[in-house]
């Protein structure tokens, strides 16, 4: 099977980039990249006017299987990811039961291979049942295919436990992804603490609750000489802490999500539960700082933190509503519209944030378009303006605050292992 992609603009994070090239794919691999390929092919995609990117990679999502299939499952989650242009995704272990053993790692791989769509890489828990008490068998889990370790959603409270987790994971070259939140400072907070929380009469989550833990974890990684990945940063000070740590040579990487550079706490006005997420949406000053962090490389990647919830869990009192929003199907168009379109980033930088760097952080041999590489590609058209319509989402859930947003960036085709799956 030979697939030819003609006339597209090829975008890589590094090396060959922003060039008009044809790409010839044979079986699962990229065979040839050059101008005007005239070889024989079985199938041809005309990518005139489109950009051809290495397949997008999401290092942080929630597929809800097993346990919460009424919100999402691997079937619907990978379909949603595919329509968002993702060829690989890493799912968080806060399922029921928690992914803290090899059997569940195998289960996730079996299910996703059966479905055979976007590739799914499970992240295992740091602690048994995410309770922050006993370490998981990270060696076994890594052998079974756990791509990283995280107690996302239930942050590791004890500093001493985090220190041990970093050291133990490092023994197996494992990566800890830390959800940074000082729970004692958050108390019963449900949105960013500030003027908006005051006038809505809602309890606030102070920025410093995130920043203290970012600092703690970065310093613990520095002290132990281990690597760490900081999940979904949302404040100016978090960006600064990571910037300074990187300058000191700490092995820290960081991610943010589209909602932290496109929305602010104002979205919570009128008690809009679709804008309830943890960490909470912050202020316009934080948005500016996040964009600066993306520009100067302090923030390595954009992840979705795709967090599906049933309508019944959002259509309640703000304080009772679940945290999170779905992100697969809006991540690329929002990132393009809010970062590349206004000139903050080049397409190539965006590819770095959404494909090349996530692959490096997760140690995947992916994220670039080069001869001899696996053919995971995403073809996008950024010329047409479109309106986000949450009723058209492929996800089982529709908890997104972006309904009606005007954006650019249509996912035209997705190629996984040389096969056109979208």
């Amino acid at each position, binding site marked *: 099977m030979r697939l030819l992609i003609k006339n597209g603009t090829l975008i890589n994070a590094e090396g060959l980039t922003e060039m008009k090239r044809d790409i010839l794919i044979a079986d699962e691999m990229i065979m040839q990249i050059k101008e005007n390929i005239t070889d024989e092919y079985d199938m041809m995609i005309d990518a005139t006017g489109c950009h051809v990117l290495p397949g997008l990679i999401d290092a942080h999502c929630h597929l809800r299987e097993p346990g919460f299939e009424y919100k999402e499952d691997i079937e619907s989650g990978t379909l949603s990811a595919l329509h968002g242009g993702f060829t690989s995704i890493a799912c968080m272990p806060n399922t029921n039961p928690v992914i803290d053993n090899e059997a569940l790692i195998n289960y996730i791989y079996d299910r996703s291979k059966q479905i055979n769509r976007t590739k799914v890489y499970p992240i295992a828990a740091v602690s048994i049942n995410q309770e922050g008490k006993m370490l998981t068998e990270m060696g076994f889990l890594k052998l079974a295919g756990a791509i990283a370790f995280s107690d996302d959603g239930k942050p590791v409270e004890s500093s001493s436990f985090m220190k041990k987790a970093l050291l133990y994971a490092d023994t197996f070259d494992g990566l800890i992804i830390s959800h940074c939140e000082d729970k004692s400072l958050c108390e019963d907070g449900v949105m960013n603490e*500030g*003027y908006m929380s005051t006038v*809505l*009469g809602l309890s*606030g989550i102070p920025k410093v609750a995130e920043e203290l833990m970012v600092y703690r974890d970065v310093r613990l990684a520095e002290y132990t000489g281990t690597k760490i990945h900081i999940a979904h940063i949302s404040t100016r000070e978090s960006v600064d802490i990571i910037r300074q740590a990187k300058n000191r040579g700490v092995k820290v990487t960081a991610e943010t999500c589209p909602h932290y550079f496109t929305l602010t706490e104002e979205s919570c006005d009128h008690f809009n539960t679709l804008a309830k997420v943890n960490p909470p949406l912050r202020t316009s000053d934080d948005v500016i700082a996040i964009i600066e962090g993306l520009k100067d490389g302090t923030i390595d990647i954009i992840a979705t933190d795709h967090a599906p919830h049933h309508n019944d869990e959002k*259509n*309640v*009192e*703000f*304080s009772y509503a679940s945290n999170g929003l779905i992100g697969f199907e809006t991540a690329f168009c929002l990132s393009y519209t809010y970062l590349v379109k206004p000139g903050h980033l080049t397409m190539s930088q965006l590819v770095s944030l959404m494909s090349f760097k996530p692959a490096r952080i997760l140690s995947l041999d992916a994220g670039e378009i080069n001869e001899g590489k696996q053919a995971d590609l995403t073809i996008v058209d950024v010329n047409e303006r479109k309106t986000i319509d949450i009723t058209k989402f492929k996800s089982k859930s529709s908890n997104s605050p972006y309904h009606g947003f005007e954006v650019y960036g249509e996912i035209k085709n997705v190629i996984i292992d040389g096969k056109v799956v979208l």
Partner: protein
Amino acid sequence: MSLTVLTACIYAESELEMKFEKDLLGLKNLNEEQILYVIDTARKMKMLIDSPNKKSPQLQGKTIITLFYENSTRTRMSFELATKYMSGNAANISASGSSVAKGETLIDTGKTLDMMGTDIIVMRHPCSGAADLLAKNVRASVINAGDGMNEHPTQALLDFYTILEHKGHIRDLKIAIVGDIKHSRVARSNVYGLTRLGAKVFLCAPKTLIPPDMEKTGAIITTNLKEALDGAEVVMGLRIQKERQNSGLLSSVREYHKFFGLNEQSLKMADKDAYIMHPGPVNRGVELASNVMDGPLSLINEQVKNGVAIRMALLYILTRRSI
């Protein structure tokens, strides 16, 4: 004015000259004209409360339900009496002993009440925004009788009415609100309304009981009771919940009373004719000394009476708005 004349003059205005939304959720989005219109209507209603036969026909055929997820004495009772004085059908539900206790959602409870022919649902709820949520999901008008830390608009309106009755105006008055501002929906509704009506509002509390960026509402924030009370013409105390001690927001009630308590001593800093107000229930000897509460300048009992009048006015207005 005799009762029949009063009834006739209110009844004649079948069409309100002021536009109101379906619901009364808070003072954040009520303008000065609307506030004064409610108070003006309440003034007429008060005559009924003072008359020997407390019955008028204005809510005949209207059904008003009070749905309370939190305890209440005066707010709930004043809504029920307001309904009954005006010949409406009053019914009440509390969270315990209803399907709420079985886990029914707010929207489902609201829709159930809606289908029974309810005209107005009066709700108190521990979550901020609950009244907004209910209002979006029912056909009936919703009156917010207190939602979490967000708003308590009918309390604020009765406070304004009481201040107007005694001071004649609100513009340029110095009004001090002292107590747990952070957790108080009464403080918030008062600040929104009083600043809109042109008062100089001072808020005073220990820093742990002041929410962030409160000064952006137009109120002046201070931890110095002297600064708050200096020349104040109206002083409002807010309830200090003893639970606040356990959560580390206060060290002791004794210390609170020493630095923030309203008593004869501290009130010497205020205007000599300063009126004392409190939304109730009062912790005697904590935020307010007993002799001040029972003293000649206390308007606390007057507030309760005006509360019935304000609620009568609101029930009248919201049942008339669609005619």
